């Protein structure tokens, strides 16, 4: 349900290719104790970015993938029994506050609104976390940071973030990188040569034109990396693109075939 990633300080920084000035902006938010909202389509590097930043700032990162059944206790903590007595176990949010870590709530709109309100007192200048069950009141240290993310691509009438919640965050918008940067990312991540990565990135930029009209989602950087990885391990290019790009993007056979033709036009079919 919640996934906590602990990072060793000694490992080299998670590779993140900066697109604009997001690294500096994020650092500045951290120094000034501002909570941050990351927006962007799926697979564009939000998670990678936050991992990178946590390492860069030397903070531990607690990641919570939000979902409908997430309760406030899942975030804050609950009582447990062991050794014949009860004890309190912190949830990821509480732990992050205590340790001055970064707490990252991924896909925050998926969580129910009543679970989300627990973070309100943390996101204004009080920066406190009251724990009702134990009566404790935590003051967040300056190193603590709350980061949430969501994908604004699909509009949902019944969910969605309240404007008043949105306004508690500084917002950073992410999108797929331009062809050159994306090729570099794909080449580094999948370990393929830059020429192949460039072709894939070009292909993606064309397929992205189909968003809204023919496709609900754009081809993500993540999918390109999948395709490149398959090709690297010896799968023929067109099979790799079908499996990692065309099929994941659409269930409509006509669209899949059209995407394959676009791929052929880019990479050749013979």
């Amino acid at each position, binding site marked *: 349900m919640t996934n906590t990633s602990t990072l060793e300080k000694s490992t080299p920084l998670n590779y993140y290719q900066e697109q604009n000035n997001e690294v500096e902006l994020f650092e500045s938010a951290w120094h000034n104790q501002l909570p941050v909202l990351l927006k962007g389509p799926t697979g564009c590097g939000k998670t990678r970015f936050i991992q990178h930043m946590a390492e860069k700032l030397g903070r531990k990162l607690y990641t919570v993938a939000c979902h409908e059944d997430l309760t406030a206790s899942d975030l804050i903590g609950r009582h447990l029994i062991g050794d014949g007595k009860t004890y309190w176990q912190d949830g990821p949010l509480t732990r992050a506050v205590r340790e001055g870590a970064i707490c990252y709530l991924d896909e925050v709109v998926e969580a129910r609104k009543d679970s989300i309100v627990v973070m309100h007192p943390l996101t204004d200048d009080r920066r406190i976390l009251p724990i009702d069950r134990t009566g404790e009141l935590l003051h967040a240290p300056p190193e603590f940071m709350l980061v949430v993310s969501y994908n604004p691509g699909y509009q*949902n009438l019944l969910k969605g973030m309240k404007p008043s919640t949105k306004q508690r965050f500084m917002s950073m918008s992410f999108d797929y990188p331009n062809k050159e940067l994306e090729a570099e990312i794909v080449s580094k991540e999948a370990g393929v040569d830059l020429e192949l990565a460039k072709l894939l990135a070009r292909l993606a930029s064309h397929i992205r034109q*189909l968003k809204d009209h*023919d496709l609900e989602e754009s081809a993500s950087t993540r999918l390109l990396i999948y395709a490149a990885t398959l090709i690297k391990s010896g799968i023929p290019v067109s099979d790799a693109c079908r499996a990692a790009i065309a099929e994941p993007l659409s269930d409509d056979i006509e*669209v899949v075939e*059209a*995407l394959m033709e676009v791929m052929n*036009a880019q990479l050749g*079919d*013979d």
Partner: protein
Amino acid sequence: MEEWVGVKWHHYITNKSTIRYREAAVSLKDFGKRLAVYFRALGGDPGLSLAETSDYIHSAHRTFLQKMAGSGVKQALPHFHNEYFFLPNQIDCFPSKKSNEALYYWLTALASLNHTPHKNHWIKHNQYLSQQILKQWPGLRARYKSLSRLQLKHRPKISTLPKKLQAVERAIQQVIADPWCENDIEVGHDVQSLPVMLWLYPSPIKTVAERRDQQDQDEQDQEQKLASKNLGDKKYKAEQMDDRDPGDGLIAFRLESLFTWSEFLNLDRSEEDTDDEDLQSIADDLDKITVSSGKTASKVKLDLDLPSAEYDDVVLSGGILLPEWHYKKEQLIEQQCALQTMALKITEPAQWSEQTQKQARILKRQFESLKPERKWLDRQEQGDEVDLNSFMEFSVQRFMGRGTTDPNLYRQLHQTNRDLSTLLLADLSLSTDAYISGDRKVIDVIRESLYIFGECLSAAGERFAMTGFASKLRSHVRYYQLKGFDEDYDDTVRNRVYAIRPNFYTRMGAAIRYATKQLAVQKTGQKLLLILTDGKPNDLDQYEGRYGMEDTKHAVNAARKEGLVPFCISVDIEPHDYLSYIFGGQSFVHIKHIEELPKKLPLLFYQLTT
């Protein structure tokens, strides 16, 4: 001029120049969708649609054999026209299906550059387009090579041609063989050469005879298909009406434009609140407009009388009185509109086309998987499993000496229904009588959309209702109940959906207010009001224009206050600003290609609610 035919005609028996390989034919209707996606992915203007061309007689120098056979003279040529890119409805010029298919893709690729080849530089321009595509899409080079080889086999031998055609033919063949070759021939497209299957053409090429035919055809066509490309600007609209479409058809005409004409022509509508304005005078006015606009509009009859009882739908209720917002007075005037709930007169059982049924099946399958899952409910008094969390909490409490009397320590699987009711309110006004393409009208698309929407939502186990509305002044707002919340989606409902037809005008506010009432009494926590319309509010009185917009906006806001979530799906020609004015920036979507509505509507519902 024709002497060469006599001399060398036997040669043409073996010349495959315009021979068709029937068995290798591929047709656009099997590839249309793929090509459209391909076109857009390569950079083609997403505002254009693909369409098929009928055959044109081209003015090529025909062979004797071809003349004898009376075939081979017609060739469908790819070209742009208005909002369309036309492709041959069938390609069979090459001996294998694969090559003919590849030709479709090649032509579409050329078109994706969004150029109409220049009339006077037809060869040069196609050469340029070919170069661009081969440069941008290296994967197509191998394909082009084999296509060009095939095409060259079909070209007439240069020595057999009359002298004056030789230079042109030589240039054509050079460019086909190598798009990077040097050539300085400047020729227009109507030169007497055989068509080049690999190239685009400037615009329909027509012989005089055909033009004459076309004119007759036009006279007939024009009655139904009126040009109206961009209704954004009223003046332009009026001009458009005179602009004769040269015959590719597929032009939409919106009755809406007629209504807005009255605004344009500045009819003497008195500024006072003339909601009881004499019906006849409006009718006369409108008549005048239709007449003065010439034959073009004669097909559009404004039948302002209610149909005779025999043909009319059945009135179910004597009139529900609803308020209306008067924006100038800033006042909600009570009992201003009378709304009748109606039952549609069903004359025949629903007959959906094969394609529509197929589409419904595919989408339905997707929606079946969305059926509310069974879910574990925690903290139950009884259940199949122990709820560890609540047991833990209970134990903790007991440890601390704060035992609860009724511990709910179990979990149970429950069929959880979504806590949502949805009402789809469809605009059935006369504007939906407009043609979109061929003999398809807006209402046909709406009908299919409602059908597929119903299939999908019932497959997903959603709680929903479908209704439609039309109006004729404030005294007659007709509200059609197609499916009630508690009704099953069955053949009775399908027949009703099938029976919808265009009717009068669009007094949207009253319909929204009544739909709000219906939704408000539903016991679910969430209530979604989807409004499907093809234009802005209008009616014969002052409802047209600002008044109607303000009233509708007011009704939408009132629905919101009731806790409903109103959302508009517009299939108007343009995504006009009025949509965000009435519904708010986040609460509408404009569907540009109305033909996509049947598929998009259920998907949109899914997107908006999950």
